[in-house]
Every structure is written in structure tokens, then in C-alpha cells.
């Protein structure tokens, strides 16, 4: 019960702050603008896919870290009340992730509704939003983990940016290096596995397979398509995504319960 009460008040606070609204507005304007600049549903989805892959992990990890640092005194206050640490942790996370996910859902979804494209693209839009929300949860939980492990705010924020850069850029550079290093070997399996270890790559590829068929050229493309297109592949994607959501969150949770404030 306490958890719900805490979520209620914390949500009220978050929803009144400008950044959630701006975040929502950003998706709304971007999606709507893409429609207005002559995109049909399919092209809008493709462009939004790029935006979602770039913006959501970055904003989630940065905002999540700052959010928890800013809540520091509030956490102390609440923990001097008859509130369990687990309750407070869940409430803090929920109050961050729910509004951010809603911002993605409505910001991307609403323009599809009023542009009338939702009926023809319901499955695709929902999949896009689902991926957006998954990335929100994953990078928020990484953010929580960072903020709980690092006492110093500046260092924590720095770490967030570095980690985002790692997942978004460096990791793919390493994959490319790996590909060039072992180009004489059959690489489809190992590269597939490597890219599944990075949640951002996983999200990108899962979306790619669905929306950017033109990228799936040649034999290699067919192999990837076969894997990700199959039910088994999709289940593995979900499982890995879920692991990426749960692992940092559980580590963060443990830290939150054990640590001194």
C-alpha cells in the first residue's frame, strides 16, 4: 500500500515538472512534423525509429541519473518515515519510468491516431512504441544503478554519458573491428550474439528487421531476418531485453536496500 501511495505523490511531482512535458512534446512534434513533411505511415515509422534509438537511451540514462541524485534528500526524509526501502525504491523507479514511457506512447502514438495512420500501421506503431518503452526501462535502470553506485554527482553523470557512448557508438566500433579481425571465419552467429549483448543494438536490429526491409540485402540479411523474424528469435529478443531491464534494476535494488544514506 505504501508503495502505491508513494508512487501517487512522486508521480504528481514528476508530472508537474517541465521536462516530462517537454519530452512528450518532442516526440509529438517530431512525429507530427514527419507526417506533415509528406511522410506516409511507413516512412514516419522509419524516421521515428532513428530518433527513438538516439534520443531515448540518452535521455533515459541522463535524466534517470540526475533524477536519483536530486531525490537524495527526499530519500533520506522518506526513509526516516515508516517506509520500507524496497517500497521507496519501487516508487522512485515507477514514478520515473511511467511518465517517460507514457510520453513515448502518447508522443509517438497520438500523431498516428490523428493522422489516421494507426489503423493501417497498428502493429508496427505498437512494436516501435514497445521498443521505445523497453529502451526507456533498460536505460533508466542502468541510470539508477549508476546513481546508487557513485556518490559523486559529476562523476555519475559523466559515467552515464560514457556508458551511453559505449552502447551507442563504441560497442559497434568494436564489433566492426571484430568483423575485420576474423573476416576469414563464418561470423554470422558470433556477430549476432555480440550484438544481442548490447541492448541498443538489439533494439536497433529488432526494429530494423521489421521496418527497414531494404537494409536486409543479400545472404547475410536473409540469415538475420530468418533469426529475428522467427518466433524463437523474437522470444530470445524479449528474453535478452528483459534481462537487460532486470539486471541493473536488481543490482540497483540490492544496493539501495543495503547502502547507507
Amino acid at each position, binding site marked *: 500500500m505504501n508503495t502505491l501511495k*508513494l508512487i501517487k505523490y512522486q508521480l504528481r*511531482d514528476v508530472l*508537474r515538472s517541465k521536462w516530462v512535458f517537454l519530452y512528450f512534446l518532442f516526440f509529438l512534434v517530431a512525429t507530427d512534423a514527419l507526417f506533415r513533411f509528406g511522410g506516409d505511415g511507413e516512412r514516419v515509422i522509419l524516421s521515428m525509429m532513428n530518433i527513438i534509438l538516439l534520443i531515448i537511451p540518452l535521455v533515459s540514462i541522463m535524466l534517470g541519473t540526475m533524477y536519483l541524485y536530486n531525490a537524495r*534528500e*527526499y530519500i533520506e*526524509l522518506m*526513509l*526516516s518515515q515508516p517506509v520500507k526501502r524496497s517500497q521507496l525504491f519501487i516508487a522512485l523507479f515507477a514514478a520515473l519510468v511511467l511518465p517517460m514511457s507514457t510520453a513515448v506512447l502518447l508522443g509517438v502514438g497520438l500523431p498516428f491516431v490523428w493522422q489516421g495512420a494507426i489503423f493501417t500501421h497498428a502493429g508496427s506503431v505498437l512494436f516501435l512504441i514497445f521498443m521505445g518503452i523497453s529502451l526507456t526501462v533498460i536505460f533508466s535502470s542502468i541510470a539508477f544503478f549508476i546513481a546508487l553506485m557513485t556518490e559523486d554527482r559529476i562523476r555519475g553523470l559523466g559515467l552515464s554519458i560514457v556508458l551511453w557512448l559505449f552502447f551507442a557508438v563504441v560497442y559497434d566500433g568494436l564489433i566492426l573491428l571484430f568483423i575485420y579481425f576474423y573476416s576469414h571465419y563464418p561470423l554470422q552467429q558470433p556477430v549476432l550474439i555480440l550484438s544481442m549483448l548490447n541492448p541498443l543494438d538489439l533494439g536497433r536490429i529488432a526494429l530494423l528487421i521489421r521496418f527497414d526491409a531494404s537494409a536486409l540485402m543479400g545472404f547475410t540479411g536473409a540469415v538475420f531476418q530468418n533469426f529475428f523474424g522467427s518466433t524463437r528469435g523474437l522470444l530470445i529478443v524479449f528474453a535478452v531485453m528483459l534481462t537487460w531491464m532486470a539486471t541493473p534494476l536488481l543490482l540497483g535494488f540490492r544496493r539501495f536496500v543495503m547502502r547507507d544514506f
Partner: protein
Amino acid sequence: MILIQNLNKSFGKLRVLQDLNLDIHNGKVTAILGPNGAGKTTLIKCLLGLVKPDSGSLKVNETSINGNAEYRHQIGYMPQIARYPDNLTVQEIIEMVKDIRGNPDETDEELYHAFGLESELLKKFKTLSGGNRQKVSAVLAFLFRPSVVFLDEPTAGLDPVSSSCLKDKIKREKDGGKTIILTSHIMSEIQELADKIVYIMDGDIQFEMTTSELLEATGEATLERAIARKMKGIAA
């Protein structure tokens, strides 16, 4: 009634509390004093459950505090700097804490009226002045009639009128049998309020005596001088 036995706490290599023992009795105002970094805050945080001790036992009103949260129903806490969610109004913040405490019927709204917080009720927390934030914090500390109240620099930032309101409240609550634990840098305030001085340095209690005993033993008129003399004696 608070019972602390063999309390130890280290942050990394730094031993903040070393085998600390302390009884704090009901119906008294106990001031915990000591230089910066002596372990005062850590001690209070241990009692609030914010910091987990390495070893030792802590009891508040016969309840061992071991990661449970329920005993905090008996505790009121006014931190040095209070920060509630920025975008909630004063009313909502009070409502929230009441909600979490299970909406008890008999709340103590004495301070709330004394501070005249009615006019601030609809303001968002982030727009409040430092003094008003402290007032909200003080109101919440006493609101649920807790048997133990922690006050960390309670009058810092308060105007003289509010400050004396708060001091009067502290005295009344003490007389009502509450356990009050206080830290402050203002010695006159301690002298005025505290029945007992607990002086902590290097993680351990240096001395523990009533205010009158201390003044008597050192022959000084003010607490400030008395503590200075006492510490010189210990050092020598």
C-alpha cells in the same frame, strides 16, 4: 527511550563510530555535540535507520532496529536541510506524510498554527523560502506525536519569532515525556533547551553529563566556555 550498545561503523578505512554506548531517557532533551566529522550525524542516521551499523545493537522504545521500518512510527525527524518533492504543495506534502503514516486521527497541529503556515499551504515546495521549508519540516516532525524526536539544527534559518515558537514547543514536549535529541551549533540554544550533553569526538563519547553538572564542574557561566574547558581538561 533509546539504548545504544557497542555501536561500530566504518566508512571504508575510516572508523566513524567506535564501540559507542549510550542511554537516552524519556522526558529529557539530549544534545549531541562535537566537532565536525565527529560522528554526530552518523549516530543519528544509525538511529533513523539510514545508516546500517557494522555491529552493535540499537533499541528505540525496546524495539530493536534491524532493517524494519515500523519503529519509525514512533520517530519524528527534522533534518538540517529538508527537501520534499519540488512540485508538491505544502498541503500535499503534509497529506503525503499523513498518508504514509496511516492517517492517524490525533495529529498535533500546534506548530502549524503557531507558524501560520496556512498562507503557504498552496505554494509549491520549490517556491518556499528556506525558513518556510524549515517550518514545514518542524511541523512534520511533531505532527504525529512521536515519542522520539530528532532535531538537526532546528532553528537554523528560522526567524526569531518562529525560533522561539519552536523552542517553546520543544520544552512542552519534553515536559510531556518525549525523548528529544538535538544537535545545534548555537550553544545558548543548547544551554536553554538541553538537559543533558553528550559530547562525541573521534567516534566515541568523550563525556556525558547534565547541563547543570557541566556548568558546575567547570565553574563557567556559559556552555560554550564550559565545553571548551572540559575538553582542555580531557586533552591534558
